[in-house]
C-alpha cells in the first residue's frame, strides 16, 4: 500500500520494528549496525509511551529487553557478533522465561573483534542456542532490504505467537545497503493474549512471577520439556524457504542471506553457459528447511553449500541429506564476501 522508499537496511529494520508496534529499544553501538540504534533513538525519543536507552553494555541491554518484555511490551535490541556474544546470558534467560522479543544480529567477520565487513559465522550461535542450556531462537535470515522489513515485522508476531525470542540474522552488507522498500499493510493475525503471564502489578488477581530456574531437577526438566514441545510446533509450522530452479538442475546450491543473492546472479550467468543451477535459500534457519533439502539433494545428488563462514549451515545440510547426497562446500570468511565468479568456478569443479 505504502509508497516506495529508498532505505538503508539498518534503518529499514528500525522503521519496520516501530510499525510492528515496538516502542522499547535498548542497545549499544557497534559497526555495522549502528544506524539502527541511531534510528531508534531518533524515533522513539520523540514518541509517547516509548523508550530508547543507550545501555552501558550489551549485557545490560538484553536485560532491559527482558524487563520490558516481562511487562508485555514489544521490545528489541540489536548488535553484531561481539555484542551478540555478550547478550547470550540474557538470551538464555529470555528463552527459559519464555519471553517474546526481537534480537537483531547484523553479522560481521569473526572471531574475536574480527572485522567490520559482512560475515555469516554466527550461524551456530544463532541456531543452536548460543548461550547455556537447551533452547532455540526463531531465526530469520533476510536477503534484501525489503525482506529485512517483512521479516522484522514477522519476527515480532512469531515471538509473541510462541512466547520465544526471535532473531533477525542479517549481515553488514544488507545492513548497509540501500534498496527500495515498501511498508505493506499487513493482515491482522490472531496472537495469544499476554494477560496470563505479564507482570504489571497484581491488582485484582493473585501475584505472578517469572523465574527462569528451578532447583528441583525434575521441575527444571518440566520447564525444558515444555519449551522443547514448543520447538516441535515451530518446526512443524514455521519453516520458510525460497526454492529456485530445482527441476532438472545439474547442481543445487544451499545458501542464505547475502550469499543467496550472489548465487542468484550465478544462476543467471551459468544459464548462459548451459549450466542449470538450483537454489534452496532457507529463510528460517531455525526451524531449518530439512525436508526440501533432503528430497532435493537425494534427487539431484550434487549439492554445494556456500557461506561466509567455514561451514556452519553445512552441518545442518549434511544432517538433512543424511548421507544420501554428495554435499560440497565453499566458504569465505573474516569479512570477505565470495564473488559470483568464485562460486561459478567452484560449481564447475563438481560438474565434470
Amino acid at each position, binding site marked *: 500500500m505504502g509508497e516506495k522508499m529508498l532505505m538503508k537496511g539498518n534503518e529499514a529494520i528500525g522503521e519496520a520494528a516501530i510499525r510492528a508496534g515496538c516502542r522499547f529499544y535498548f542497545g549499544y553501538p557497534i559497526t555495522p549496525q549502528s544506524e539502527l540504534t541511531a534510528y531508534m533513538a531518533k524515533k522513539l525519543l520523540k514518541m509517547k509511551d516509548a523508550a530508547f536507552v543507550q545501555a552501558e553494555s550489551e549485557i*545490560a541491554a538484553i536485560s532491559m529487553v527482558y524487563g*520490558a518484555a*516481562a511487562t508485555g*511490551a514489544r521490545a528489541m535490541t540489536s548488535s553484531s557478533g561481539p555484542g551478540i556474544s555478550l547478550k547470550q*546470558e540474557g538470551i538464555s534467560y529470555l528463552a527459559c522465561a519464555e519471553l517474546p522479543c526481537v534480537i537483531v544480529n547484523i553479522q560481521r567477520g569473526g572471531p574475536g573483534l574480527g572485522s567490520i565487513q559482512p560475515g555469516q559465522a554466527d550461524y551456530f550461535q544463532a541456531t543452536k542456542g548460543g548461550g547455556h542450556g537447551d533452547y532455540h531462537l526463531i531465526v530469520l535470515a533476510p536477503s534484501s532490504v525489503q525482506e529485512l522489513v517483512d521479516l522484522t515485522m514477522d519476527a515480532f508476531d512469531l515471538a509473541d505467537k510462541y512466547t520465544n525470542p526471535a532473531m533477525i540474522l542479517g549481515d553488514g552488507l544488507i545492513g548497509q545497503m540501500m534498496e527500495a522498500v515498501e511498508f505493506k499493510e499487513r493482515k491482522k493475525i490472531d496472537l495469544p493474549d499476554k494477560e496470563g503471564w505479564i507482570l504489571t502489578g497484581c491488582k485484582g488477581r493473585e501475584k505472578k512471577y517469572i*523465574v527462569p530456574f528451578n532447583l528441583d531437577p525434575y521441575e527444571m526438566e518440566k520447564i525444558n520439556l515444555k519449551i522443547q514441545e514448543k520447538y516441535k510446533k515451530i518446526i512443524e509450522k514455521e519453516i520458510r524457504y525460497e526454492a529456485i530452479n530445482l527441476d532438472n538442475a545439474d547442481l543445487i546450491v544451499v545458501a542464505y542471506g547475502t550469499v543467496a543473492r550472489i548465487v542468484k546472479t550465478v544462476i543467471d550467468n551459468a544459464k548462459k553457459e548451459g549450466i542449470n543451477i538450483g537454489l534452496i535459500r532457507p529463510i528460517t534457519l531455525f526451524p531449518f528447511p530439512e525436508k526440501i533439502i533432503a528430497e532435493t539433494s537425494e534427487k539431484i545428488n550434487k549439492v554445494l553449500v556456500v557461506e561466509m563462514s567455514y561451514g556452519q549451515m553445512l552441518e545442518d545440510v549434511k544432517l538433512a541429506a543424511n548421507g544420501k547426497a554428495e554435499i560440497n562446500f565453499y566458504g569465505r570468511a573474516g569479512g570477505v564476501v565470495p564473488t559470483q565468479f568464485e562460486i561459478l568456478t567452484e560449481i564447475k569443479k563438481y560438474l565434470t
Partner: protein
Amino acid sequence: MKKVFGSPKSLTKVPFTYCPGCHHGIAHRLIAEVLDEFGVREKTVGVCPVGCSVFAYVFFDCDMICAAHGRAPAVATGMKRAKPDSIIFTYQGDGDLASIGTAEIVHTANRGENITVIFINNAIYGMTGGQMAPTTLIGQVTQTSPYGRDPKTMGYPIKVAEMLSTLKGVAYISRVALSKPAYILKAKKAIRKAFQSQIEGKGFSLVEILSTCPTNWGLSPIEANKWLEENMIPYYPLGEFKTPEEVS
C-alpha cells in the same frame, strides 16, 4: 480484642527459609510493610537477584521477576521504562550488586532511573558457601580469602553508598543496619523514604542494609549481630548520604 501485630499483606504466608539469624527475613518484612503503608502492593514488581535471596519471589506477595546475576537494575530499567506507573524495586546482595553487577548499578543510578534498590551487604557470598565479596572486610577470612582479605592482592571493601552518592542522577541513598531494634526502626524509615522518592518520581533510590550471615561467618546469630556492630559499622558508617533535592 484489638489486633496490634500481624503479617504484612505484601508477604505471602510461606515461612522464610533463610538461615537462623540471617537478616533477609527482617529486610523482607520491612519492605513489605512499606509497600502496605503506601498502598502500592498491587502495582509493584520486585526484581530478585541471584544469591540466597533468589527465593524472594516466594516470600513477597506482589509480582516478582528473577534477573540474571547482577542485572537486576537493568531488568528494572526495562520494566520501569515500559510501565512508568508501576513501582519497581530490586533486592540485591553484595556479590550481585557490587561485583558482577557493578556496571548495571552504576549506570542505572547515573541515569537516575526511578526505581528503588535494596542492597544487602553482609560482606560475604552466602549461597555459594562463604566466598569473598567485594565488601568483605580487610583481614576477614572467607573460603577464597583463607588467610584474610589482603588489600594488596584483593583490593579494598567497596563503599557502595558513598560511591553511588557522588552521582548526580541519584535521589536518595542511605546505609542502615538491622542488628538491634533501634536500627531496625531507622532502617524502616530509610526504606520508606526510598520508596517515597520513587512514588514522587524523584529518581534513583538505594538503601544499603548491613546484614549478618551467621552461617558463613561461623558465628551464632547473637555473635553475628555483635560482629556486625563491632566490625562492619566502623568501616561502613550508617546514615543518609543523599536526600532528594527540593524541587526549585
